[in-house]
């Protein structure tokens, strides 16, 4: 009985020990920067899980080459990973980019980035990129998440970010999914109007003949022979004045259909009083 118990204990122990899945790791990892003028050449060794202390700043024309061997961490044997990706996270909130690393059957992996011929996916980023290496091999090994460090691309190769689905302006025939710019209408400027001074001067010019008239009249007035007109003449003058007043009131605020009846009425009155007055005047002047 104790033998069977010991056996089960040993079997369980071996199961636990044996079921520990191997972990993925990298060996001889390095990033090499080369440039045509040789000024910024550098090699950075990669030792997971330590990230690079300094950000990698690429200058124009330089080439970045990442090489490593994907191995089983415990035994050091080469492992072909099912997932070998480089994750570029844009720290300024742009889109993440994931690029594959080409791995050979012996586990040797390399990835090259030439700023003279940049990968288009990376040119639409902006700002420094956090670089992470992702290696996984389904359930056979525990995966490796290795944050390599920061990478800064030269600003000359960076282009404008790609259009997102609901960015403005909307494409032809499609509605806008964001509030659009407000539009205001510029009204026509009012017509230029004549000022008070010009108007006053004009009125003065228009009324100046009255001055002339009154002056001349005052000169000939003593020579004139004034006689009292008959009373019907006063009535005639009043009806004429009423006619003029009606015309003035019409100009200020009446309508034609309101004017015409009164005008016709007053005109008839004026004609009659005028006939009577002129008869009386003729008879007066004949005496």
């Amino acid at each position, binding site marked *: 009985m104790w033998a069977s118990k010991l056996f089960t204990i040993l079997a369980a122990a071996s199961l636990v020990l044996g079921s520990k899945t191997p972990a993925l790791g990298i060996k001889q990892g390095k990033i090499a920067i080369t440039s045509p003028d040789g000024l910024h050449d550098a090699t950075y060794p990669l030792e997971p899980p330590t990230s690079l202390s300094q950000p990698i700043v690429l200058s124009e024309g330089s080439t970045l080459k990442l090489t490593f061997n994907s191995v089983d961490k415990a035994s050091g044997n080469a492992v072909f990973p*099912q997932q070998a990706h480089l*994750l570029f996270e844009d720290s300024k909130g742009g889109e993440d980019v*994931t690029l594959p690393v080409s791995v050979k059957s012996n586990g040797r992996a390399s990835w090259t980035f030439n700023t003279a011929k940049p990968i288009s996916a990376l040119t639409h980023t902006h700002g420094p990129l956090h670089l992470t290496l*992702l290696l996984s091999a389904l359930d056979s090994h525990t995966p490796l998440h290795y944050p390599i460090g920061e990478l800064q691309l030269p600003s000359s190769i960076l282009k404008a970010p790609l259009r997102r*689905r609901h960015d403005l302006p909307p494409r032809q025939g499609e509605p806008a999914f964001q509030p659009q710019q407000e539009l205001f*209408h510029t009204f026509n400027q009012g017509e230029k109007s004549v*000022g008070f001074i*010009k108007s006053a001067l004009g009125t003065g010019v228009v009324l100046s003949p009255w001055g002339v008239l009154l002056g001349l009249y005052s000169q000939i007035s003593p020579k004139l022979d004034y*006689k009292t007109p008959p009373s019907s003449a006063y009535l005639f003058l009043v009806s004429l004045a009423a006619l003029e007043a009606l015309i003035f009131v019409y100009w200020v605020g009446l309508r034609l259909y309101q004017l015409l009846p009164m005008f016709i009425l007053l005109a008839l009155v004026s004609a009659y009083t005028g006939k009577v007055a002129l008869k009386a005047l003729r008879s007066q002047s004949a005496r």
Partner: protein
Amino acid sequence: MYGPKWSSLSALFTLVSSLSSVNARSATGDRVLVVLEPKVVKEDYSKFWSSLEKRGFELTFKGPKDESAVLQRYGEALYDHLIMFTPSVKSYANGLSPKEVISAQFAGLNTLYLLSSNISEINRDTFREYDLEFAERDYTYLDAFSHSPGSSLAAPLLYPQSSLIKSGAVLSASTLTGGPIVFPGSTSFTLGQNPFLVEVAHGSKTGYVGENRLVDADEAEVEAGLGKRDAASTTGKKAGLVAAMQTRDNVRIGFVASGSMFSDEWWGTEVELSSPKNVAVPSGNAAFAEDLTKWIFQETGVVKVISTTHHRKGELEQRESYRIKDDLTFSISLAEHVTLPDGTSSWQGFETPDLQLEFTMLDPHIRTSLSVDPARSDSKQTTYSKTFKAPDRHGVFKFVVEYWRSGYSYISTSDTASVVPFRHDEYPRFILGAWPFYSSAISMSAAFLLFCGLWVAVGEGDRKGKKKAE
């Protein structure tokens, strides 16, 4: 004497009222057709079906080759919603062919497509109509860094903070901050540029789309040459897992890359997180399924226009024509569909900060924001209004309110009114600069009266003439 009668009457009343409260809460209807392919076992999803039935939906189950399945008859829709769980079906019955389904969608059938990693060619072609390009056959979404320690990486966990997207009313706040979602056996798709697509869930930044079997280097090279493993579009956040499309007629079509996420295995159970270890939390699958089906079946995010009015500022009457430079006031009332706690449909006010009004004649002349008018809003509707000056241009204008946002019904209304120029007597009447003309006319009248007066008063005074007369 009244005891037994009252108790039976009250029992009858409660029975009748409970029956009537099992109305669907959807704004459009409660008849759902569920099409299950032979590989899918209906009992594996019993909790999903019962949750739908509890919400008042009437489920009808049919197979993809069932000739009795008909979506429309004589121009009338027989179902209001459709759940298609047939990813690997190679041919359908006539009534369920993709052409029939699409024409039913044009007539208002909301659809939910549940998929798996094995998608047949006929389905793949159908989904291209919605601007979705699916991954290759047997390619699943895998995440080696985010899955329960007990299960394989083919059943990855999606964490709401990193994988779910807040698009309007599609997902509720509790789902967006809730437990992780198990997403087993899923395919993946990339969304095109169609603006009517709504992204609901995508992969996490460490996930990728690949085969769930160990592939050696040579095979991987061949596949890469064939373009099957395109990392740029099938990794991380670019791998679409749940998306939807809302057409211009507000018909909603959802695509869930993993139909198995609705199964009883993950519904209301606990999952172990990948990190920290040995921590189990309730899964978010049930909450996600409820939120998504509520949106697809027109229960949440449904907005409608109650009324629109326009009038001159200060008046109440709506006119057909206004004058240029008139002050015009436009108001619109919006309401959002809501389910009351007792399970019935109702409408409540819909507040949004970025509603815009366009005063348009061919092109918008004025575009301005509409603000909430609290005096005319109540619990059932929200009224927005704005006062502006009609432009200098005369012509036939439209008051256009368009509100296109992911996750809410689209609003598009227009009211026509003409704007006429000034009438001849609407210009300023008496002008300061015209005084010379006024004074000349008045002085003409005055001169005429003076002349008449003088003529009457002044005699001829010519003795010669008098003598002649004598």
